[in-house]
């Protein structure tokens, strides 16, 4: 009896498994004609590298910069950007960003739930890779962008409000702008604005949104009277190094193939980063007398940001120049201008990403060359001032959308859920008040110091434990 059941079950299973296999055979035959395995490998690896930038890269970079009592909540911002956007993107985010164009403004919902997004290449977005490879690569960009914003409002935004912000901001700010810049028939793309790997879409959007968010939320309690010193600089350096490593996927992966353009983007990314780390450290050495590790890490990130829009359009020497300028400009922004204007961009999302991204987008208009990428354009220094104008339009529009979009979204969320942690919650730390956890244990006991005074919850409820004294 039992064996007859097993035989029937095996036959049924085989039959059921054959149906999709037969249906896919056609797709596979079609796809095999155009899919390039080298290109596909590179894009998948690049997608994984970009994922590494958010987790653990950005999480450690920001986590180390925050205070000990807020490290977990800061890491959670990046972690949940990964969680929430990984669901939002396949459902509607990808379709709004890259789906069939509606009036050059937004993608339609034809690709909702990844319908029509299969393994066949979409020639518009990578003729030699499966469409889903492009989709997952782009998903990683959509994830890291709102995670970058969290650096501005770290240590004071409540977690429920953050989740609402993630969803609304990704849908109403990121997705439309991604469509304008990268989507087929997007109006900025049609205009001729260049953004190779996300200078406007990722860095200006996140940086400027961060500035708006930190202004709307207000300063952290105690800013100016209490020291707000990074609690773990080795975390920061580890995070920055992972960002640098992952950025090769971010920029070189944006060539969407294992080709010369990818190599060029890889090379200029590395050169600009080193140059910016160098110039930041020199600037602070002259300004404050010491070359700091935090400066080297921050400068590297500033260089990575600035070269991003230009990565596929400029040669090595302009890349070094872009990096050198980026390091100094971003340093002055976070060390001088921020102090003068007195806004509380806690971990410098705006100072590095907003300013670095803006400089990079403008620099693309200056240094782009069709000798590097015939599909791009020539910049001002290669005889085409119009490119600079296009870049400035893209920058201005992106700033505008980030300012208005973020402000409205935060105000709407505030109607339903308080954005800002109370003073008491900030004093205690967001790790405990938002997540009920404590990052670091006492080295002697192996538990948190507070645990000595704690009574096991179950026993306390039962009233079985008497106080010791």
């Amino acid at each position, binding site marked *: 009896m039992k064996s007859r059941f097993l035989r029937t079950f095996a036959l049924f299973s085989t039959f059921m498994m054959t149906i999709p296999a037969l249906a896919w055979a056609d797709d596979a035959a079609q796809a095999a004609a155009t899919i390039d395995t080298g290109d596909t490998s590179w894009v998948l690896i690049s997608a994984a590298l970009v994922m590494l930038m958010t987790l653990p890269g950005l999480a450690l970079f920001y986590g180390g910069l925050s205070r000990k009592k807020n490290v977990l909540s800061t890491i959670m911002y990046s972690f949940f950007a990964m969680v929430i956007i990984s669901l939002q993107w396949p459902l509607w985010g990808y379709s709004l960003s890259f789906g069939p164009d509606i009036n050059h403004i937004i993608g339609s919902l034809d690709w909702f739930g990844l319908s029509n997004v299969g393994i066949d290449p979409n020639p518009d977005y990578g003729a030699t890779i499966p469409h889903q490879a492009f989709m997952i690569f782009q998903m990683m960009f959509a994830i890291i962008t709102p995670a970058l914003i969290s650096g501005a409002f770290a240590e004071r935004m409540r977690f429920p409000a953050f989740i609402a912000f993630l969803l609304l901001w990704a849908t109403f700010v990121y997705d439309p702008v991604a469509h304008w810049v990268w989507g087929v028939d997007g109006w900025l793309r049609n205009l001729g604005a260049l953004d190779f790997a996300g200078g406007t879409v990722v860095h200006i959007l996140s940086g400027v949104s961060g500035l708006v968010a930190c202004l709307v939320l207000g300063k952290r309690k105690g800013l100016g009277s209490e020291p707000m010193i*990074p609690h773990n600089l080795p975390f920061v350096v580890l995070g920055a190094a992972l960002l640098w490593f992952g950025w090769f996927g971010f920029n070189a992966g944006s060539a969407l193939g294992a080709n010369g353009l990818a190599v060029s983007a890889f090379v200029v990314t590395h050169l600009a980063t080193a140059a910016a780390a160098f110039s930041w450290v020199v600037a602070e050495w002259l300004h404050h007398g010491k070359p700091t590790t935090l400066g080297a890490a921050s400068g590297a990130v500033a260089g990575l940001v600035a070269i991003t829009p230009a990565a596929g359009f400029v040669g090595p020497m302009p890349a070094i120049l872009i990096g050198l300028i980026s390091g100094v400009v971003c340093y002055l922004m976070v060390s001088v201008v921020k102090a003068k204007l007195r806004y509380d961009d806690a971990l410098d999302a705006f100072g590095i990403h907003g300013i670095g991204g803006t400089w990079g987008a403008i620099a693309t208009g200056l240094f782009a060359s069709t000798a590097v990428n015939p599909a791009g354009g020539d910049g001002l220094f290669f005889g085409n001032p119009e490119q600079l104008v296009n870049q400035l339009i893209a920058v201005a529009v992106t700033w505008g959308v980030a300012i208005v979009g973020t402000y409205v979204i935060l105000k709407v969320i505030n109607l339903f859920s308080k954005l800002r942690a109370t003073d008491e919650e900030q004093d205690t730390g967001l790790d405990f008040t938002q997540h009920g956890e404590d990052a670091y244990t006492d080295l002697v006991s192996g538990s948190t110091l507070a645990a000595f005074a704690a009574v096991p919850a179950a026993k306390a409820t039962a009233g079985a434990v008497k106080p010791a004294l």
Partner: protein
Amino acid sequence: MTKIECILRPGKLENVKDALNEYGIHGMTVTQVIGCGLQKGRTEVYRGAEYSINLLPKIKLEMVIPDKNVSEVIRIITDTARTGEIGDGKIFTYKVDNAIRIRTGETGDEAI
């Protein structure tokens, strides 16, 4: 019996401990502390923002010793921990009524 409590530069702990061990003092309690005295603090800079840190890391070393050893122990600590610069630390002495070894119940000098 006398309790000796001294505040030292962190880098001097090993030297002081070795010198006291050589003299025959083995029991001590060591704590990492922060504090301020004559030594001015220092300035740390994070992304261009300056913070003056006026509580500096120090080591607190405590021991209880027989009265007859006090002057020699103080001499050893002073000689070993001195650099001549501000921030070398301080030594405090206190009279101790009694000491009891928990394991055996011994008291007084026997217990230390």
